[in-house]
C-alpha cells in the first residue's frame, strides 16, 4: 500500500471533519466525505464566542503551558495531559492558519488579531470573529475543501447518513454503510481508513443547544460494533441558554467575556423591571462567591450556581431564570463584538439585550465524553479514527469555553496524518473481503425493512420526548443514584417500546421517519452509557455532580470511564489518567489559581529554575521553546 494513494472516508463535515479532509487532500490522498447535511450547515456554525490559543499579544505573559494548565485544571484533571499539551502548543498555529485563510477575525488598532477573555482563564486568549466564530471558521474550511473538491481530491456525499461500519473478520474497519436520505438507497463505502467527526449527542436530552443533526447516532453505531466509548457521563450544561419550545438557544460565554454580569434581585420575587432595581438591591452571586474569576468561572460551576439560586426560589420572578446583564456596556461596542448573539436573543425573545437584561437558564450543551482514542486519535478498532466533539480526549470532566473549536481542528489535524500513516502501512494479510460489504449492506437493509414493516401503537417522536425529559431531569446538573437507576429502567422500557413503533409515513421518498427511528435506537443505547457511567462514578468532578458524594475523589476516581457494548448492558472498565505534566490539585476559583508545578518542556532540564521564574514574572518568556516560529518578539 505504501506510496499508493489511499482512500479515507470521513463521516461528518463540521470543523473536525473538514480539517481532516483538507489535510488528507493536501497530502495527495482521496477523501469520501459523508455528511447528513451540506457541510456548510454543520453544527460548528453554532459556536459563537471564539477559539483559544495562547498567542500572547496583550503583554500578559500568556503561553501554551498556561493554556495547558487552565485546560486540565478546568477539566478537573480527568483529561490525559499529553494530547492537551499538543493541542495547546498547536493552537497559535491553528489561529494563524485561519487568519491566512481569510477568516474576518476582529482586529486591534494595529491591525493584529484581537483577543478577548473567556471562562476559566485570566488571560485574553480567545480570537473571535464577531460572535459567530464557529460559523466563520467552518466557512473557511468549507472553502478550502471546496477547492479540493474542484481538484477532484474530495468527493462529498451530502444528505447521506452513516448507518454502520464494515468490519472484516479481524474486527478491522474496511469502510462503512451509509444511506441516501432522499431515496433511502444504502451504499457501501470502501475505505482504507475511516475518521468519525460527527459531533455531539445533545439530542439524547431532547432539548439542548445542539443542532437537530447532533444525535450521536453514527458514533453509537460504532460503539455497538465494538468501539469503546469513554467518559460518557460527562455532559456539559451551559450556564446561559435561552429556553425555547423547540430547542435551547445558546447565549455565548463571550457575553460574560465582554463584561456581562449575572444577577438576581435580592428581594425574592421582586416584581420590578430590572432597570428599576438599584445596584445595591441586586445580587451578583458569581462575583460575590468567586471574586477572582467572577462571571467567568468555568461552566460547570456557573451552571450549578445558577441552578442552585433558582432551586432556592431566588430566580427572577421565582422562575427558572436569572439575569445576564450587558446594559452597562455601550450599545455600539456590543453590536460590533457580540452582534450575532444579541440578534438571536432579540429575534427569539423580543427584547433588545443592549437595553434590557437577558433572562437565561442552563441548557445541555456539549459532551466531554465520546469515542475512546489514543494520543494519535486512533480508536480501539484498527482503521477507525475519531476527532472533534465525538472523541473524548481533550476536555476531561469539563470543557472550557472556546476550547471546543481549537480541539476540533487539532483533532482533525492529528487524525488526518494518523489515518494516512495507517492506510499507507496496513498489511491486509490476505483477509477475505468477498461478500464483506454486501453482507453488512444486507444487514442494514434488513433493519430498515423491519422498521418500515412495523405496525405498532408507539410513536417514535413521543418516545424521543420521554427520553429527553427523563435524561434532562436526572442526568444533567445534579445527580442522585436512585434517580439514575430509575432512569436506566426507563430507558430499558423505551428500548422495549421502540419495537412497537410505527413510522406513520407511507411515502418513503425523503421520509424523515426511517432515519429518525434509526437515530432514536442509537440515542437510547448511548443514553444508557451516559446514565450508567454517572451511576457508577461516586464522586463529584467537573460537570458530574452528586450531592451524596460532593468531593472529587482522586484516590478512587482519577480514571477514565470506558464503556463497551453488550446486548444486556454496557460493560464498564476504567483506565488511569495520564497526569504526567501537571500534578492534580484542588480546583478553587474563588481566588487566583494556586501555582502549578512547572510543565516539563523540551530542553527544560537545561534551564535554571530561578531564571525561568524571573522571566515568567516579567511576562517575557515563551514557555515552550518549540514555538519559536510564532514568537511575538520576532
Amino acid at each position, binding site marked *: 500500500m505504501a506510496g499508493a494513494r489511499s482512500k479515507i472516508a470521513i463521516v461528518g463535515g463540521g470543523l473536525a471533519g473538514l480539517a481532516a479532509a483538507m489535510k488528507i487532500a493536501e497530502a495527495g490522498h482521496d477523501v469520501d466525505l459523508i455528511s447528513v447535511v451540506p457541510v456548510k450547515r454543520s453544527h460548528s456554525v453554532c459556536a459563537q464566542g471564539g477559539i483559544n490559543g495562547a498567542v500572547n499579544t496583550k503583554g500578559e505573559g500568556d503561553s501554551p503551558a498556561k493554556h495547558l494548565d487552565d485546560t486540565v485544571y478546568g477539566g478537573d484533571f480527568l483529561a490525559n495531559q499529553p494530547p492537551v499539551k499538543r493541542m495547546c502548543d498547536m493552537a497559535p498555529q491553528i489561529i494563524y492558519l485561519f487568519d491566512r485563510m*481569510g477568516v474576518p477575525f476582529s482586529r486591534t488598532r494595529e491591525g493584529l488579531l484581537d483577543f478577548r477573555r473567556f471562562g476559566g482563564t485570566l488571560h485574553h486568549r480567545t480570537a473571535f470573529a464577531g460572535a459567530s466564530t464557529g460559523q466563520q471558521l467552518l466557512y473557511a474550511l468549507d472553502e478550502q475543501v471546496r477547492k479540493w473538491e474542484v481538484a477532484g481530491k474530495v468527493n462529498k456525499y451530502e444528505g447521506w447518513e452513516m448507518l454502520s461500519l464494515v468490519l472484516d473478520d479481524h474486527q478491522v474497519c474496511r469502510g462503512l454503510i451509509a444511506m441516501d436520505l432522499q431515496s433511502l438507497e444504502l451504499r457501501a463505502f470502501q475505505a482504507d481508513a475511516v475518521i468519525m467527526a460527527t459531533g455531539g449527542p445533545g439530542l439524547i436530552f431532547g432539548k439542548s443547544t445542539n443542532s437537530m443533526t447532533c444525535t450521536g447516532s453514527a458514533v453509537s453505531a460504532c460503539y455497538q460494533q465494538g468501539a469503546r466509548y469513554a467518559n460518557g457521563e460527562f455532559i456539559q450544561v451551559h450556564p446561559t441558554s435561552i429556553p425555547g419550545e423547540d430547542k435551547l438557544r445558546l447565549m455565548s460565554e463571550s457575553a460574560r467575556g465582554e463584561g456581562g454580569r449575572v444577577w438576581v434581585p435580592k428581594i425574592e420575587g421582586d416584581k420590578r423591571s430590572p432597570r428599576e432595581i438599584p445596584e445595591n438591591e441586586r445580587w451578583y452571586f458569581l462575583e460575590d462567591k468567586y471574586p477572582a474569576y467572577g462571571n467567568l468561572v468555568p461552566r460547570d460551576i456557573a451552571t450549578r450556581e445558577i441552578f442552585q439560586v433558582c432551586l432556592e426560589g431566588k430566580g427572577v420572578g421565582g422562575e427558572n431564570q436569572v439575569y445576564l446583564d450587558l446594559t452597562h456596556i455601550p450599545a455600539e461596542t456590543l453590536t460590533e463584538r457580540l452582534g450575532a448573539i444579541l440578534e438571536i436573543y432579540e429575534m427569539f425573545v423580543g427584547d433588545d439585550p443592549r437595553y434590557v437584561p437577558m433572562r437565561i437558564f442552563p441548557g445541555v450543551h456539549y459532551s466531554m465524553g465520546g469515542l475512546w482514542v489514543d494520543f494519535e486519535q486512533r480508536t480501539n478498532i484498527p482503521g477507525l479514527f475519531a476527532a472533534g466533539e465525538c472523541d473524548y480526549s481533550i476536555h476531561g470532566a469539563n470543557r472550557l469555553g472556546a476550547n471546543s473549536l481549537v480541539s476540533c481542528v487539532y483533532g482533525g489535524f492529528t487524525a488526518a496524518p494518523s489515518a494516512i500513516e495507517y492506510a499507507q502501512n496496513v498489511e491486509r494479510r490476505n483477509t477475505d473481503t468477498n461478500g464483506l460489504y454486501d453482507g453488512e449492506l444486507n444487514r442494514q437493509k434488513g433493519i430498515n425493512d423491519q422498521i418500515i414493516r412495523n405496525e405498532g401503537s408507539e410513536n417514535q417522536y413521543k418516545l424521543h420526548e420521554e427520553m429527553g425529559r427523563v435524561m434532562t431531569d436526572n442526568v444533567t446538573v445534579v445527580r442522585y443514584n436512585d434517580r439514575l437507576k430509575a432512569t436506566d429502567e426507563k430507558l430499558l422500557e423505551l428500548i422495549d417500546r421502540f419495537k412497537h413503533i410505527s413510522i406513520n409515513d407511507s411515502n418513503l421518498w425523503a421520509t424523515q421517519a426511517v432515519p429518525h427511528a434509526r437515530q432514536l435506537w442509537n440515542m437510547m443505547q448511548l443514553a444508557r452509557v451516559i446514565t450508567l457511567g454517572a451511576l457508577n462514578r461516586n464522586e463529584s468532578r467537573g460537570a458530574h455532580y452528586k450531592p451524596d458524594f460532593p468531593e472529587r475523589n482522586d484516590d478512587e476516581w482519577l480514571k477514565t470511564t470506558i464503556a463497551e457494548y453488550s446486548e444486556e448492558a454496557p460493560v464498564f472498565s476504567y483506565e488511569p489518567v495520564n497526569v504526567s505534566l501537571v500534578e492534580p490539585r484542588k480546583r478553587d476559583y474563588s481566588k487566583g489559581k494556586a501555582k502549578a508545578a512547572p510543565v516539563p518542556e523540551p530542553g527544560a532540564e537545561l534551564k535554571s529554575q530561578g531564571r525561568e521564574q524571573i522571566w515568567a514574572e516579567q511576562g517575557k518568556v515563551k514557555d515552550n521553546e518549540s514555538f519559536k516560529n510564532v514568537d511575538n518578539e520576532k
Partner: protein
Amino acid sequence: MSTNGHHEKKRLEHPPNSIKIKIQRREKDGAPEYWETFEIPYRRNLNVISALMEIRKDPITIEGKQTTPPVWDMSCLEQVCGICTMVIDGGVRQSCSALIDDLLLASGGDTVTLQPMSKFPNVRDLKVDRSRMFEHLKQVHSWIELDGTYDLGPGPHIPNEVAQERYAYSRCMTCGCCLEACPQYHEDNYIGPQAIAQARLFNMHPTGKMEMDDRLNGLMGDDGITNCGNAQNCIQVCPMSIPLTRSIYETNRDVTVNGLLGWLKK
C-alpha cells in the same frame, strides 16, 4: 419600556386557542402539488419549526384525514445554518426564526401558510435542493489560495474596518433567500447575489486580491453579473443584512475595469 430610544416589541394580546398551518405539499419532484391544513393548540413562543414538529408527531388534517408527515429541513434553529428556509405567508425566510405570534400579528388571522422555495428543485413538501448554490461558489473561486496549510505564521495586517466589512459578507449562510426573491433568477440562468457577494468577500482580502481575475472571470459569462436587473429585492430579504447590492455594484466596477484591462493587454 422605552429607555435609550429602545422600544419593546409588539406582542400578541389575545391569542387564539388554536392555529392553522396550511402547507403546500408534493410527494416528490415532478409530482402534482396539493395543499393540506393542520390545526394545533396555540402556545406562547411557538415558531414554525415547533409547529411542524407538533404536526409530524401525528399528522391529521383539519378534515380529520390521517396523512403523511410533512417533510422539511432543519438543523441549527438559531438562524445560522440556513437550511430551514421556506416561503412563509408569502415571504422567504428561515422557519426557525419565524415566530407564530409575529406572523399572526402581521396577518391578523389564525393561519400560517408554508410553501417550499420556488426557485430550486422541490425534493418533497417543504424540502428543496439548493446544491447549485454551492456550485456557484466553485464558479467564483470562493476561497483563498494558500501555499499550504503548514505553519507559515500570521496572515497580513488588516485594518479592523476592513475586517468588519468582510465579516458582514462572510456571514452569508447560502440560504437562498436572495435567489428566491430575485426577479432575474430563473432555472440557474443567473449566478445571483450570493455568489457575487462571496467573490467580493475574497477580493477585499489582501491575499485574496491576488486571484481576483479568477473570481471575476466566473462572473463574466452568460449567467454573469450583467444579468442583475437592479430590482434590489435581494437586500430586502437577506436575513443576515448583507450589503448585497453594494457588492454587486463594486464587483461590477471591478469586472468593467478587468474587462478593459484584459482588452488593453490583448
